[in-house]
């Protein structure tokens, strides 16, 4: 026979009135995927209010860019959305080309599109597989990480590095794509669709995943537009705004692709929109690759526009000839003055409209460079998305928004 002791717990003053618990989520937390802190007031499992703190990885990119000539800014742009560095690099080079008035040849545009869409695929892969991890399904993540290695190998062949690529030059690329690069691209195009189909089949009609994600973190189109949402998060809410279609850059108008749009803007729609965008990106890469193969003979050797003041000379010349060495040094160290001007250019990055606002006063470095970072802007809506929902849904919402700390804090 057990005796039950009645424990009289003395409640602290005012505790009956305070029905909510304060929970500090982050900044070091496995589920926040980056350094974000949320101080949540919980009523049981339901979130009553939440307040975010950001800036835990503020690296002062904008101040750093005022010290660096154009080519030295490219490695900084790498570290914005580091899951898809080539997109940021290309966006920066396109901004510089807009300032300098450079027109790139078609072959360069198509090669750029191949690299940009590969970067988009690698970004969406991480986001979607991490949404799976947060609902408990670790397998999908490990399975597709293997295929991100294939994308990394293609980057390595073109520019030499895997993650923070510093790819390309103002006007094009540093070298022509080798046959190995095209072989690796063909291997990717052959193997990847099966994998994506399998990954999709693990999640898209999976009852548990659907019940976890449907309804969580929903936002209406009007609120999303008011919050300045762009990219897959906005398209999941129902607005078909895609910078590649609205203001095409780098010859996107020559390609045939559609923009997937969701209905309710909840986690499930975001997952499906990103998934479908990966299929669309795959189709764009195939079209671009076909178009690149149509260039024959001398046309197939073009890999950059003619911008002598801003395009680094060939490496063989730099290592052997004095003038090329001096010219290389001058361009990198910014001894060539920029034209005066003020330009805003945006591209469709993995998370939405990534904008570069560049003011140049004729000096060697930008006078002011501001990055319009989509993650920073749509993270403001997080309290509205999670209030009233449960804590576990808040975690899934955070990862389905694809918050990348580097882009958010810059």
């Amino acid at each position, binding site marked *: 026979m057990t005796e039950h002791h009645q424990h009289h717990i003395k409640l602290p003053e005012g505790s009956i009135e305070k029905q909510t618990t304060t929970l500090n989520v982050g900044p070091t937390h496995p589920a926040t995927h980056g350094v974000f802190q949320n101080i949540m007031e919980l009523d049981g499992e339901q979130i009553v209010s939440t307040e975010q703190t950001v800036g835990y990885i503020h690296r002062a990119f904008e101040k750093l860019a005022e010290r660096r000539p154009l080519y030295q800014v490219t490695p900084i742009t790498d570290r914005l959305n580091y899951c898809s560095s080539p997109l940021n690099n290309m966006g920066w080079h396109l901004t510089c080309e807009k300032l300098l008035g450079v027109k790139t040849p078609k072959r360069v545009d198509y090669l750029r599109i191949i690299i940009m869409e590969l970067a988009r695929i690698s970004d969406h892969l991480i986001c979607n597989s991490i949404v799976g991890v947060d609902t408990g399904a670790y397998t999908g993540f490990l399975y597709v990480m293997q295929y991100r290695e294939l994308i990394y190998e293609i980057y390595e062949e073109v520019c030499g590095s895997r993650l923070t690529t510093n790819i390309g030059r103002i006007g094009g690329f540093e070298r022509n794509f080798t046959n190995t690069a095209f072989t690796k691209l063909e291997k990717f195009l052959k193997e990847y669709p099966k994998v994506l189909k399998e990954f999709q089949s693990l999640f898209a009609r999976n009852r548990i995943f659907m019940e976890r994600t449907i309804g969580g973190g929903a936002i209406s189109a009007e609120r999303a537009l008011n919050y300045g949402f762009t990219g897959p998060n906005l398209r999941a809410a129902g607005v078909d705004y895609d910078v590649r279609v609205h203001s095409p850059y780098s010859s996107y108008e020559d390609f045939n692709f559609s923009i997937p749009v969701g209905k309710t803007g909840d986690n499930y729609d975001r997952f499906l929109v990103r998934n479908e965008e990966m299929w669309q990106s795959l189709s764009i890469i195939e079209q671009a690759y076909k178009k690149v193969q149509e260039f024959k003979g001398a046309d197939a050797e073009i890999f950059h526009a003619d911008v002598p003041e801003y395009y680094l000379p060939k490496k063989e010349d730099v290592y052997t000839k004095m003038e090329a060495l001096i010219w290389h040094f001058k361009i990198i160290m910014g001894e060539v003055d920029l034209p005066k001007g003020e330009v805003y250019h945006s591209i469709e990055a993995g998370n939405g*409209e990534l904008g570069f*606002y560049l003011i140049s006063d004729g000096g060697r470095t930008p006078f002011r460079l501001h990055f319009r970072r989509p993650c920073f802007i749509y993270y403001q809506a997080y309290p509205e998305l999670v209030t009233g929902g449960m804590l576990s849904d808040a975690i899934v919402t955070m990862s389905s928004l694809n918050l990348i700390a580097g882009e958010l804090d810059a």
Partner: protein
Amino acid sequence: MALTNEHIQHRLTEKFGDLVSNFSVLYDMLNFEVSTDQNLKVLQFLYDEADLNFQFLTDLCGVNFPDQIGRELAVVYHLHNLQDNVRIRFKVFTSVASPDVYTASKLFSAANWMERETYDFYGINFIGHSNLKRILNVDEMDYFPLRKEYPLEDQTRIDKDDQMFGRG
């Protein structure tokens, strides 16, 4: 009728007279300057008018022009009309002595954090903002780092040999 830069300029000068000035077209985008206390009215006008319809705030940032005495700090607004695909940019200038600008966060929720970031970097005080405190830097910081007078590097470092970095 397509929304052209001339039409926007015409509507603005018709409504605001010389409170809007300095119109120019740079890289196909209309640029203008608005006098400091009219920024909210111009934003509201551009938002409400059916033929202008600039209902998307793309970007809000600050710039420091240390050489323009009395107008050192600028707030730059980029607006976008999604239906007609037209972008415009306008600037509002204030001085370092009293950097007060009305907040756009009641009209555009997107402006909330963008104004906090501009405050954090430049010290521009947005009147009417619900939560104007530092967002990216540490809360205890007592200066506004992106102003041109402040250096990039951390001045409290003692382990760096300035000679090696060309600053000796």
